[in-house]
C-alpha cells in the first residue's frame, strides 16, 4: 500500500479520537485532574515537612504521572472493542501496528501532553526549582509517550477480560519500572547537581525501543483478542 494512504489511516484515527475527546472534554481533563489530586493527596497523607516533601517530590510526581497515564490508557481499546469499531480497525487495509501508533498518539495528546504541560506548576508544591524543573519537564516529555506505548500492550492484552482494570495495572506497572527509575532519577540527580543527561538519554533509548516493539506487540494482542 502507498505511503500516503498509511498516513491517511493514521490521520483518520487520530482525528476521530481527538473528535471524541472533544465531545467528552471533561474526560480528557480527567488524567490531569487525577494527577493534581494524587499529588495533592500526598502532603495530606505524609505531613507538611518541607524537607521531606522536597526529597520525595520528583518521585511522587513521576509516580502520579505514571498512574495517570496507566489509568487513562487502560481503557483505550475497550470502547472500540465493545461497540465493534475494533473489528473494523482490524479489517482496514493498513498494517494494524500503524493504526495502533495513531491511536496511541491521539491518546497521548489528550492525556499525556497536558500532564507534561502542567507538571511545572505542580512541582512548585514540592519546592523544585530552576534547572531541575526543566529536567522534570524534559523527562516527562520523553517518558510519557513511552508509558503510552507500553500501556497500549497491556490494554490490548486484557480486552474483554474481566477485572481488566487492575489486571492491566499488574501487567504494565512492572514494565514501567525502568522509565520511572530513569525519569525520577534524572530529576533527583539534577537536584543533586550531577545533571540529568545520562538518565534523559536512557529515557530516549526507552522511547525508541518502545516505538519499535510496542505497536507490533499491541497489534498481535489485538488480533488475538478478536479471534
Amino acid at each position: 500500500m502507498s505511503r500516503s494512504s498509511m498516513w491517511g489511516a493514521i490521520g483518520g484515527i487520530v482525528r476521530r479520537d481527538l473528535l471524541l475527546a472533544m465531545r467528552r472534554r471533561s474526560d480528557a481533563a480527567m488524567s490531569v485532574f487525577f494527577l493534581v489530586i494524587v499529588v495533592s493527596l500526598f502532603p495530606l497523607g505524609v505531613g507538611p515537612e518541607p524537607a521531606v516533601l522536597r526529597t520525595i517530590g520528583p518521585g511522587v510526581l513521576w509516580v502520579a504521572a505514571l498512574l495517570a497515564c496507566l489509568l487513562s490508557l487502560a481503557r483505550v481499546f475497550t470502547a472500540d472493542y465493545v461497540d465493534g469499531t475494533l473489528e473494523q480497525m482490524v479489517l482496514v487495509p493498513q498494517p494494524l501496528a500503524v493504526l495502533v501508533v495513531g491511536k496511541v498518539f491521539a491518546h497521548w495528546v489528550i492525556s499525556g501532553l497536558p500532564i507534561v504541560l502542567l507538571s511545572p506548576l505542580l512541582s512548585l508544591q514540592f519546592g523544585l526549582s530552576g534547572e531541575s524543573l526543566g529536567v522534570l519537564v524534559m523527562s516527562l516529555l520523553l517518558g510519557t509517550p513511552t508509558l503510552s506505548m507500553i500501556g497500549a500492550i497491556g490494554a490490548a492484552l486484557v480486552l474483554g477480560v474481566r477485572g481488566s482494570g487492575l489486571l492491566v495495572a499488574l501487567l504494565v506497572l512492572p514494565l514501567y519500572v525502568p522509565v520511572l527509575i530513569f525519569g525520577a532519577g534524572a530529576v533527583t540527580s539534577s537536584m543533586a547537581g550531577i545533571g540529568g543527561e545520562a538518565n534523559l538519554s536512557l529515557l530516549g533509548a526507552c522511547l525508541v525501543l518502545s516505538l519499535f516493539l510496542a505497536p507490533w506487540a499491541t497489534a498481535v494482542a489485538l488480533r488475538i483478542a478478536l479471534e
Partner: protein
Amino acid sequence: MSTGINWAKYSSPQALYPLAGRLIPWFSVVAVALMGVGLYMGFFVAPTDFQQGESYRIIFVHVPAAWMSMFLYVVMAIWAGIGLGLNARPSFMMAQAIAPTGAMFTFLALLTGAMWGKPTWGAWWVWDARLTSELILLFQYAGVMLLRTSIDDVRRADRSSAVFALVGVVNVPIIYFSVQWWNTLHQGASVSMSTGSKMAATMLIAMLLMTLAFWMYSIAIILSRVRCIMAERESLPAWEEKPVTIQKIAEAR
C-alpha cells in the same frame, strides 16, 4: 544425541508426552543426589564465614533460587516465542508449565533473602536495587499467570500470555542494568571467592551443586507439569492408559 533428534516428531503432544514421562525419573534422581551432596558440602564441608558466621549458609538456597528465578523466566519467554512463531501448542504448554516453578523460586529468593537480611542488615527488607528487581520479577510471573487464568479460551490464553512473557523479557535486562545507577546495599559478590582460597572453593562448589540440583529439579517438575497440562487439555487415551487398563475400565461398567 544432539544431532539425531527429529524435532518435528517431538513437536506434537503425542510424542512429547511419553518422552517426558521417560525423562522425569532420571532428572528426579539426579536432582535428589545433587541436592544431597550439595547440602552435605554446604553444612559439613564448607567452613564458617569469618565475617557473617553461620548465617551465610543461607547462600546455598538463596543464590541458586535467585539464579533459577531469572533463568526460568528467560526460558519461559523463549518457549512463548517459539509458540507464537510456529503456532505450536506444546511450546505454549511448556511456557505454561514453567511459570509456577519460576514464581516459586522467585518467592524463595525473596524469602531466603529476607531471612538473610535480618541478621546481616538488621532489616527484613530494604529498597535495594537487586531486591526490588527481584520483586518486579515476581510481579511479572504473577502477571503471566494471572493473565492466563483470566482468559477462558485456551487458545487466546496461550497466545496472550505468550505475548506478555515476551514483552516482559525485554524488561529483565533493562531492570537488571537500570538498577546499576542505584547505590546498592546487596552483597553482590561479597562472599569473596576471588581469593581462590580453599574455604571459598568448597563454598563455591556447594553452591554450584545446589544450583545444578535446583536446575534438575526444575526440569523434572516442569516436564511432569507439562504432562498434566496435556492430559487436562486433550483426550489422550492411547498415551495415558495401558490397553489393559482401558479393557478393565470397559469391563467395570
